[in-house]
């Protein structure tokens, strides 16, 4: 409690008493979750997709009732008095709840009428909200024609009409560029100062660090409840940044991860980030050759999360061990993009994108949703014909030999794009067939995938009933069945739990060591740091290209000596906008 706290603040806005909710016969979506949410604070509901975040928020809106336990909101029980709750909360569901055929003003009018905002207060309230959200210039524009960030602000404005005491935001950061996300955060901070209770759910662990209080959910269970600093405090002085590594850092990382005492580790630009067991230091267990310098670095929420889940999966990738190696024979680029441009009508989705990716590199396309990452990606896969420009993948020209090129690459599409009604084994068989595997080799590869990814117990389950982590493994297995020399990964780990994410990257790192070339799109800033080089895509254009460390170095200043990737992204975008304006 801060000194500002008054007696009023201590009565919880939401009281969760051993809340359990199940859907069908599956494991409960929420299992005996308990806790209090206070006013005047930002409370984060944090966890991977499928952890139960949306269910918890819906239970607070009284649109859903718990199977066991109770939810009390602002003194009303959700079972007996849903109307009392709905009259005094503001709720922004995942897709903002806007009518896309209505203009900004019409959406505001609708919600003002539904929430019973008196006519006399309207012009003042609308004025304030439009200024607050910076939407005053767009009142006549249809909501469907707004950018993701503007939609989000309008959704917030609609939820704030008739000032609520409790504001529930379900994943407001999804599909929004980091700049809008930061704007929104500032707005929410202002609301908090007015004593409003804010609930913000998110799968981004870096958002969790900024909350006042965090409920960490995993598979329906509450893993942690408290200030995020308490969580990261658990791994304080146990996180090290190893810089100055000579040689192949991915091989080193794999080596470290197999060592006793290492809980977790990831690539971070040119460096390696390790989480050690308490009391151990990476240079004490010095059998690794090569000089490097290990320094204690501030822990992140994700470090603590992985630690809490018992550590990462280790550094060995059996997938990579069984994969044939691709030697870099001539140092020529495996993927080339030369001025790739795609226009849809008068909208330019990708504008003059150029880059080269040498063999054995992980190259990332980083940018918010709708920036043009997937469009660029699809052009390189030969799924979209460029309006202008050329591309080559594994030596094949995309305009002429796209089918041949596709045989050399493995593609893992955004979200889950396998056949949900086919079983795991049927999916594997199908994709093996599609990639032209047959006979003994087909049987061998499928059996191997089953072993590596541990599908044995789920072989006959429909893919759509698999847990998210297993789905993701299946998607990767299908993409690498034919030992491709190029891997295209479209948002491969968005929303999955950190352990699955670690496992995934262990495989990718291993494959890269074997000479596989990887092109990955992501809007996770920390994931961008796993790449060798990244291209920052914003509004269809590549506004910066280089290694993650270079980008961070470019914007480092006295005020910000050690910027994060997100800082770098925002500064580079703002810099490019300033240049456009000039």
């Amino acid at each position, binding site marked *: 409690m801060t000194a500002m706290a008054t007696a009023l603040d201590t009565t919880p806005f939401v009281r969760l008493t051993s809340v359990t909710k199940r859907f069908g016969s599956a494991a409960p979506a929420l299992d005996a979750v308990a806790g209090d949410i206070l006013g005047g604070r930002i409370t984060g509901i944090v966890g991977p997709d499928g952890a139960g975040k949306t269910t918890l928020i819906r239970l607070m809106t009284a649109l*859903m009732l718990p199977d066991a336990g109770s939810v009390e909101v602002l003194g009303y029980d959700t079972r007996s008095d849903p109307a009392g709750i709905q009259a005094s909360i503001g*709720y922004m*569901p995942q897709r*903002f709840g806007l009518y896309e*055929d209505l203009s900004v003003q019409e959406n505001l009018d609708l919600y003002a*009428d539904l929430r019973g905002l008196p006519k006399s207060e309207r012009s003042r309230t609308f004025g304030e909200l439009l200024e607050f959200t910076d939407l005053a210039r767009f009142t006549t524009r249809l909501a469907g024609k707004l950018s993701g960030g503007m939609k989000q602000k309008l959704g917030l404005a609609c939820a704030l009409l008739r000032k609520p005491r409790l504001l529930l935001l379900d994943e407001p950061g999804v599909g929004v560029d980091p700049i809008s996300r930061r704007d929104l955060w500032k707005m929410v901070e202002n609301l908090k100062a007015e004593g409003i209770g804010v609930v913000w759910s998110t799968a981004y662990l870096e958002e969790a660090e900024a909350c006042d209080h965090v409920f960490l959910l995993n598979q329906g269970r509450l893993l942690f409840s408290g200030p995020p600093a308490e969580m990261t405090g658990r791994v304080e002085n146990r996180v090290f940044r190893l810089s100055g590594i000579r040689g192949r850092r991915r091989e080193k990382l794999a080596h470290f991860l197999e060592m006793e005492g290492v809980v977790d580790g990831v690539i971070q630009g040119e460096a390696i980030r390790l989480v050690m067991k308490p009391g151990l230091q990476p240079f004490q267990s010095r059998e690794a050759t090569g000089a490097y310098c290990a320094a204690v670095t501030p822990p992140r929420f994700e470090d603590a999360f992985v630690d809490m889940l018992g550590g990462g999966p280790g550094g060995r990738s059996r997938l990579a061990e069984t994969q044939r190696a691709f030697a870099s024979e001539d140092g020529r680029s495996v993927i080339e993009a030369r001025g790739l441009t795609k226009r849809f009508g008068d909208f330019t989705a990708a504008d003059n994108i150029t880059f080269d990716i040498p063999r054995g590199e992980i190259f990332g396309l980083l940018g918010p949703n709708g920036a043009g990452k997937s469009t660029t990606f699809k052009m390189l896969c030969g799924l979209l014909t460029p309006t202008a420009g050329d591309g080559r993948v594994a030596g094949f020209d995309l305009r002429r030999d796209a089918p041949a090129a596709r045989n050399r690459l493995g593609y893992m599409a955004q979200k889950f794009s396998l056949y949900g009604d086919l079983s795991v084994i049927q999916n594997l068989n199908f994709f093996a067939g599609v990639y032209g595997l047959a006979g003994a080799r087909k049987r061998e590869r499928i059996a191997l995938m089953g072993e590596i990814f541990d599908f044995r117990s789920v072989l006959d389950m429909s893919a759509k009933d698999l847990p998210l982590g297993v789905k993701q493994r299946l998607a990767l297995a299908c993409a690498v069945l034919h030992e491709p020399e190029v891997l295209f990964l479209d948002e491969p780990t968005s929303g999955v739990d950190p352990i699955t994410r670690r496992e995934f990257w262990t495989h990718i790192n291993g494959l890269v060591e074997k000479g596989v070339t990887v092109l990955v799109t992501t809007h996770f800033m920390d994931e961008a740091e796993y790449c060798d080089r990244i291209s920052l895509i914003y509004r269809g254009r590549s506004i910066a290209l280089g290694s993650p460390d270079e980008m961070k170095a470019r914007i480092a200043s006295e005020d910000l000596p050690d910027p994060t990737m997100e800082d770098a992204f925002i500064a580079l975008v703002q810099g490019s906008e300033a240049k456009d304006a000039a």
Partner: protein
Amino acid sequence: MKDQGKQAQAYKSSGRARRFAALVRKESYQVVRDPSSILIAFVLPLVLLFLFGYGVSLDTTRTRVALVVEETSPLTRDLAASFEASRYFSVVAGRDRREFEDELVLGHVRGIVVIPAGFAADHAAARHPSVQVIVDGSDPNTANFVQNYAQGTVANWERQRMSEGRSMPPAISTEQRFWFNPQLTSRNFLVPGSIAIVMTLVGTLLTSLVVAREWERGTMEAMMATPVSAAELLAGKLLPYFVLGLTSMTLCVLLAVFVFDVPFRGSVAALYALSATFLMPALGQGLLISAATKNQFLASQLALISAFLPAFLLSGFLFEINSMPTVIQWITYAVPASYLIPSLQTVFLAGNIWPMFARAIAVMFLIGCMFFALAARSTRKRIG
């Protein structure tokens, strides 16, 4: 205190009115701006109406038949001549039925009319000579048609000979007379029937789609978290689509009367009373479907199968209910369109027959109430 209570009451009801008005306004904007509503409410009806007005005709003219005359006599030549003169048939003449058997199977001719040997002798002896009509039973509609018109042609021929005094009058003769649609133009009963189909489209298909869309886009969830009640949400959906359904119906009636020259002998009041009542079950069914599926694709499939197809097939629109198997006839009692279509045909072709309309209105009202009750029950302010 009492005053305060009253004020609160007044505030509450004014809040309700305002919320309702806001929902109706929102829905109306959406109807006007959403091309798919315009498509279903105005373009599709036009297409349907033109299809039934011009494209589909259940009248047959000039059906190709084979005429086999097995004996040549003045009498048989006379009868053959009257087949050749018939505006319903186009005749291919021959002397042996075997010549045409293959053509009948292949469908090159739709029937074989045989004037058998001994026809003249039988006729002279007044032994009721027979004419054989061979038709392809695999196409019952055409078979019936050929059979009936062949009989008609023979009967005409008899009558004509009688009036010319060349033949003895038969003991009893039948004569057909069609009331209300004397030319038996199928358009005249197809067009009023298709208006019922159009209202099913607007009422059930469109309504179920727009509600399911709100679930899919997450706007329903946002609405429900406001003080609006489930009843207000439903009513706010119903009114705009009720008006849209009647507008679409009006457009169809104007087209029917002024473009297709379908007579309109009843009253406008009866037309609107019937249509408005019919929209109750149609809208109720739409709401029920969308509340149950919450998914546009499923909703459209369900609406097509449970509303559109029955309105087409089980309403007496294309197929006579009386000639359906008994079980199917029972099902037709539950199809609201089977009450509307005969009534609409009556309004257009016959005039106001209020006892008939009253019954139709009562039944449609009851089915409508049932759908509303089910829809209200399944639309709770709850998710999952």
